[in-house]
Structures are given as C-alpha cells and as structure tokens.
C-alpha cells in the first residue's frame, strides 16, 4: 500500500507532465488543470491501497480516462452551446502563439544569451504545438513511450491495444513529428 508520502512524491513528480499531456489533448489550460485534479483525486481516493510501484500505470490510465470524459462532456455541452454560438466570445486558442512574442522581442536590444533563450523557447513551443497536433492515439503512444518512459507492454496495457499497435503508433508519430518540424525549419 502506498503511503501518503509516497503518493505525494509521486504526484509531485508527475503533475507537470500530466498537465502538459492533458493540455496537448484538450488545448485548454483550465480544462487540463481540472482533468489533472480529477485524476489525482481518483488515484488518491480509489487506489491508495495499491503499492507505490503500480501508481504510474494507474495514474496514466486514470488521466487518459479523465481526458476522454472531458471530451464526452464537451460533446454533450456543444449540442446546447451551438444554439448560442453567435453570442459567445471568440476563441482564445491562438492567442498564445510564441512567434508573436518572439517577433516583438526581436527588435529589442536584448543580450545574445537572452536571444538564445528566446530561440530555444520558440523551438520548444513549436515542438509542443506539433505534438499537440498529432492524432490522439499516436500522441498518447509517443508520450507514454518517450516521455513517461514506459515500455511497449506497459503502453499497450494502458492504451488497451496490442504491442504491435503501440509500435505502429509510435513510428507514425515520430515520422509525422519529424516531417512537421522540418517543414517549420527545425532540425533536431
């Protein structure tokens, strides 16, 4: 059974990645925070009797289900919202484009190190954008394998598919990402 301290350490170590993964999926920071909070609560409430070694897989699965639940709720809500869509404010999805910030700062007399920092953050932001654009299953498989350090079998167990499918998703995600980044002038 995972102790309170073990659970706390685990959540502290995983919360930022979980938030980012949820954000890539739903493309909304507030919704992503809600999803992560739901997942944390479910893990703590329902699976605190499980050993600490099982927490990573369980949490990944819970987070995935919480994200799917969000989309289900959104689908139901959208049937009502579409009736009033003309009255709703404009979407804010594209307001966080890092390129805009970069262009604004390019003209400023910034030090060279600061410019490097900005360029790096620009690259990171573009990578994040492209990761978020991947098809859901490909993104899930890729992030679990290369960000969460899960092996193929664990990823397959969480995704509920075969190991062959995981390899296929990962391969497709890698190729799609490489192609997209190359098109935007980023060579890793």
């Amino acid at each position, binding site marked *: *059974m995972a*102790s*309170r301290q073990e*659970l*706390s350490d685990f*959540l*502290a170590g995983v*919360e*930022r*990645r979980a*938030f*980012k993964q949820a954000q890539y999926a739903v493309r909304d*920071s507030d919704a992503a*925070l809600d999803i*992560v*909070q739901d997942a*944390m*609560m479910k*893990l*703590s*409430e*329902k699976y*605190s*009797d499980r050993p600490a070694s099982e927490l990573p897989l369980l949490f990944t699965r819970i987070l995935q289900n919480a994200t799917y639940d969000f989309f289900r709720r959104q689908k139901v809500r959208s049937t009502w919202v579409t009736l009033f869509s003309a009255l709703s404010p404009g979407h804010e999805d594209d307001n966080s484009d890092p390129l805009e910030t970069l262009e604004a700062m390019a003209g400023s007399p910034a030090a060279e190190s600061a410019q490097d920092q900005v360029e*790096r*953050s620009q*690259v*990171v*932001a573009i*990578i*994040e954008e492209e*990761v978020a654009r991947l098809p859901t299953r490909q993104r899930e498989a*890729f*992030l679990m*394998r*290369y*960000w969460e350090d899960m092996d193929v079998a664990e990823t397959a167990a969480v995704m509920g598919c075969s190991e062959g499918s995981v390899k296929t998703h*990962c*391969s497709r995600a*890698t190729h799609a*990402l*490489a192609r997209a980044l190359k098109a935007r002038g980023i060579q*890793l």
Partner: protein
Amino acid sequence: MNEKEFGYRIRQALNEAAAGLDYKTTYRLEQARAAALARHRGPAASPAWNPALQTAGSADGGSRLGWFGSFGLAAPIVALIVGFIGIYQWQQQQLPERMSDLAAMDFAVLMDETPIGAYADKGFGIVLRGETEDL
C-alpha cells in the same frame, strides 16, 4: 537519426516546457495535489470495524460493511412483514371453518330438528345468542 534518439530529443524539449510552467499553473497543481492527498486513506484511517462511524457505501472498503449494516436494519422489518402475512394467511384458513359452523347451525334450524317450543324458551334464546356471540 533513429526513432529512439528522436524521441529522446523531443523528451528534452517537453521537459523544458514542463519545467517552465507559470506560477499560476504550478500553484493550482499544488492545490490539486493537496486536495487529492486529503482524500488519501492511509492504514491508520481505515479501522477494521467501527459501526458508530459507518456510512453506507461511502467508500470501497466501507461499502461492504455498509451493505451488512443495511441488511441488519432491514431484517427486523422483513421479519415483521413476513409475520403479518402469516397471520393473515392463518385467518384466511380459519374463516371457512367458522363459516361452516354457522352454516351447520342455520341448517339445523332450517331443518326443524329443534322443537318449536324451544324457540319460545327464554333460556334457549339466551344460549343461542351466547353461542352466536362466541362465534
């Protein structure tokens, strides 16, 4: 560059992005973590049996005990209902016997087996009324 190496470089970029989260987001994550830990059921917080604090179906462990608790409450009520049904059935079984007794007396009267003078006798009337009331 192979898939693993590419994945590793993407991972570095994503780690950097996660490390650079703004204060508002990290604060909310901390709050979420604290709220989740508040719901953690540690070993000390789960007594084996504590009926006074029992709430039916409140949690996974408690739901089984809660079911037993509900059953304990429902058992006397069920027994009472079964008792009522038994009494009703017994009365229903007794009813034809009473009816047949009354019918036999009426039959006897109608068949004129009782001497006509008996009806004029006060005592017979009293006995007859008494028997009827008893029945």
